[in-house]
């Protein structure tokens, strides 16, 4: 039962360590960015927003790991929840612009005036209140995941089928959000934000605070997720992952366990998206692209699925690699990413965390992947 070990109480300390590291890094970076520019320890605004972006992606990776690593649901559409959270935050930021837009209309965002809308669509209601917007960040992905998951798990859609329809879901959302008529800025999405809760989004202090908030949220999500997947619920999830039918025959309700973790994970992804938008300053339909979802799966695979901390590590490392690669050898990034997929699936089935496990513990026996196909599922 090697696969169980990282997911149980044993790695609680590991999760706390990762949460602490993530938070500490944000504090240090934020502090350094506030130093005067002449100071050799000064960190530029670019690095701060880059770090914020990585950590937002880490939250997305964490949410993917929750469903893939623990419940065995390979989601190819999780970026949809990330982007929905992002749009909910984007709506609030858009309303914060107020009369400072090009057209100076206090109620309508510029793109709506441009498309000659007369009033805000109903779903924009209340988006000027921060608390309501934060609620939307949670409930919009949550409701979508709830409906989708309830339908899918109840009728026992699983394995590759589920992966493909999650991909179709995010693809359909991408097509929908590209349309101007939907009221989310179409092609261009939401952008040109000015401030958040009255604080200038471009000032170093706001950026530093946002980075620290992202670090804190990431640490919180990590600990909350660890708590959720530990103990009885965690064992149930892993049992569902490894032998769904046997679990069902033992009297459990696998679909309920799956639905719970699926909705929770979607909400975590939504939070990640909201934090992403504040630091990147734009949200557009390309965030829904199926390729983004699949990339987030590789972050988890590289870090080590079913380890939580590994997904954070994977997201940060792969994105660092992407930033460096696209700066140095832009045309080789796709080769690099493709190879990463191949190498990870072929040689590192448990990712970097598994590798570390392997090296540190000097285990004599091979690290085996989980019993993947006991019932011939999906084969």
């Amino acid at each position, binding site marked *: 039962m090697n696969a169980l070990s990282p997911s149980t109480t044993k790695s609680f300390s590991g999760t706390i360590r990762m949460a602490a590291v993530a938070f500490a890094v944000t504090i240090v970076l934020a502090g350094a960015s506030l130093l005067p520019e002449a100071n050799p320890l000064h960190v530029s605004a670019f690095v701060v927003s880059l770090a914020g972006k990585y950590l937002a992606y880490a939250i997305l990776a964490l949410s993917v790991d929750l469903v893939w690593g623990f419940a065995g649901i390979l989601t190819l559409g999780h970026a949809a929840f990330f982007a929905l959270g992002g749009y909910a935050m984007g709506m609030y930021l858009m309303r914060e612009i107020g009369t400072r837009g090009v057209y100076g209309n206090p109620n309508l965002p510029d793109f709506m005036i441009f498309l000659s809308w007369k009033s805000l669509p109903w779903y924009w209601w209340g988006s000027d209140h921060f608390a309501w917007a934060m609620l939307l960040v949670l409930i919009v992905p949550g409701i979508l995941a709830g409906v989708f998951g309830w339908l899918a798990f109840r009728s026992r859609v699983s394995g*590759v089928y589920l992966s*493909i329809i999650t991909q*179709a879901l995010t*693809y*359909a959302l991408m097509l929908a959000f590209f349309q101007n008529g939907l009221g989310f800025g179409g092609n261009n999405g939401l952008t040109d934000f000015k401030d958040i809760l009255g604080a200038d989004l471009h000032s170093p202090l706001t950026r530093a605070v946002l980075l620290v908030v992202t670090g804190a949220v990431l640490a919180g999500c990590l600990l909350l997720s660890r708590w959720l997947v530990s103990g009885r619920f965690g064992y149930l999830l892993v049992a569902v992952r490894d032998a769904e039918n046997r679990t069902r025959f033992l009297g459990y309700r696998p679909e309920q366990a799956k639905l719970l973790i699926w909705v929770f994970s979607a909400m975590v992804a939504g939070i990640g998206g909201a934090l992403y938008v504040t630091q990147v300053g734009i949200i557009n339909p390309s965030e829904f692209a199926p390729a983004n979802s699949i990339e987030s799966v590789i972050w988890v695979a590289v870090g080590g699925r079913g380890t939580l901390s590994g997904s954070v590590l994977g997201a940060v490392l792969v994105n660092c690699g992407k930033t460096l690669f696209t700066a140095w050898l832009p045309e080789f990034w796709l080769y690099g*990413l*493709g190879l990463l997929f*191949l190498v990870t699936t072929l040689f590192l089935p448990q990712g970097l965390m598994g590798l570390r496990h392997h090296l540190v513990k000097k285990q004599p026996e091979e690290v085996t992947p989980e019993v993947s196909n006991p019932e011939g599922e999906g084969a």
Partner: protein
Amino acid sequence: MCRFSQFLWAGVVCLLLAFSGVRGAAADEFSGLESGQFNTIADTVSAMVASGNPQAGAVIDALEKRHLVYSPAGGVFIRAGTTYVDARTGQSVQNIPADLKPVRMNNHVRQVLASATAELELLSPEDAVRLKAATQMYAQHNPAMLPVIHHALEREKNSHVRLKLEQANAATMLAQPVQPGQEATRLAAVKTLGSAGDLEARGLLAVVAASDHETPEVRKAAAKTVSSIDLKQRVWSVLQNAFYGLSYGSVLLLAATGLAITFGVMGVINMAHGELMMIGAYTTWLVQQGIRATVPWLEPVSLLVAIPVAFCVCGLLGILIERGLIRFLYGRPLETLLATWGLSLILQQAIRSIFGPTNIAVITPAWLSGSWMLGSVDITLNRLAIFVFAFLVLGALMLVMRKTSLGLEMRAVTQNRRMAALMGIRTPRVDALAFGLGAGLAGLAGVAVSQIDNVSPNLGQSYIIDSFMVVVFGGVGNLWGTLAAAMTLGMGGKILEPTIGAVSAKIAILVLVILYIQRHPRGMFPVRGRGVES
């Protein structure tokens, strides 16, 4: 005395002027061309055609090409290169006046010229020319042309041209202001236009139906005909979209059969399938370029040569992928999905590095260009060919699956891998060949797609999600299911398109399939057998 002589002189001048005018008009129908007045020129052109002067055709032709010149002193000439021909006689002239000017044109003259040409054409000995002229008359429905149309109708023998002329007559008739006692003729005209049934007729009839000058009977008939034309147009447009849907469905079918085979036999969703299609399309291009460079006389059939080449290239590549990658991931379908996705990124980038990121121009051979009208449905030949090709491929594949030992083994492995292995089937070999076959089919899909879509490194991405939906919707490992799903998705999307728009149609189809999968998790035609998870 003095005053009297003034009057006298004026009278003489008047008489002279009047005489000269009469003399000019009576003497020669060409002299109007020498006047420099637009209206006179236009009238002259009409008169010339009506008179049936043998020189009329040449003069009108020259005027259209701006080769007609005149001398203010008198004389109209047609310029032919550097020499001149007298417009009146058709004889070449030696003594050319020095002050030649081109005969002037304005929009009025051009209009008259166009109808004059049409009139000349209506009397042409060639059927095609007459049909074209009649069509033009129909479109213009200029009341001034009625006598011409009647004249032509009297002589017309060809039934096609006659029908068109009758429609032109009806249209022109209805375009005229209403005169009393015409009700019967107008009703007949409405009926004739109804049989034409196109948008032109609809427009005219709508005007008639709304007109206050028409009798109620005519108005009613016109309104009824308008609604019947509308219905007919809707039916045609549905049929046209159904044809587009069929052709898109055929592409999906080609793309999805390969995917269905690998998934059915091995449980592998090959995310690089789209890239194999792309490689098939690039192979088509390479074959075309190669043939052009070496054996140009084979160029018209280069597409046919590309079909087996693309199949072999992609098939071999598929076997290579299976042996080099997939077999190490056996039993882990979700990881295979990730690995093939990685592979697809590498293949995409490789093609981008070799051929550049932009579209390449795959040539559509002449025998595949053009289209064919079936009623009002425009059947483009390349799409028709893809439709036929997809069914040939499907038929061949069914033969392979039913009549060959490889097919038997593949079906056995699909139904129950373990049992098949126990019976002595070498499942690794079947896996490799099945993957090769699936990849080869992707290559064939690539050849087909190269004829209707842009060929670029992104080609695979635009088909992969739709192909997945087809496989999942149809039910894995069942070719009939794949066929039904491809056609349903292709047609469904295109038929929804006119009412809700292209993007919404696509979204609607995706959502419908997602919902369908909830009800039928194994698709329309689930595989049944002991090995299949219940």
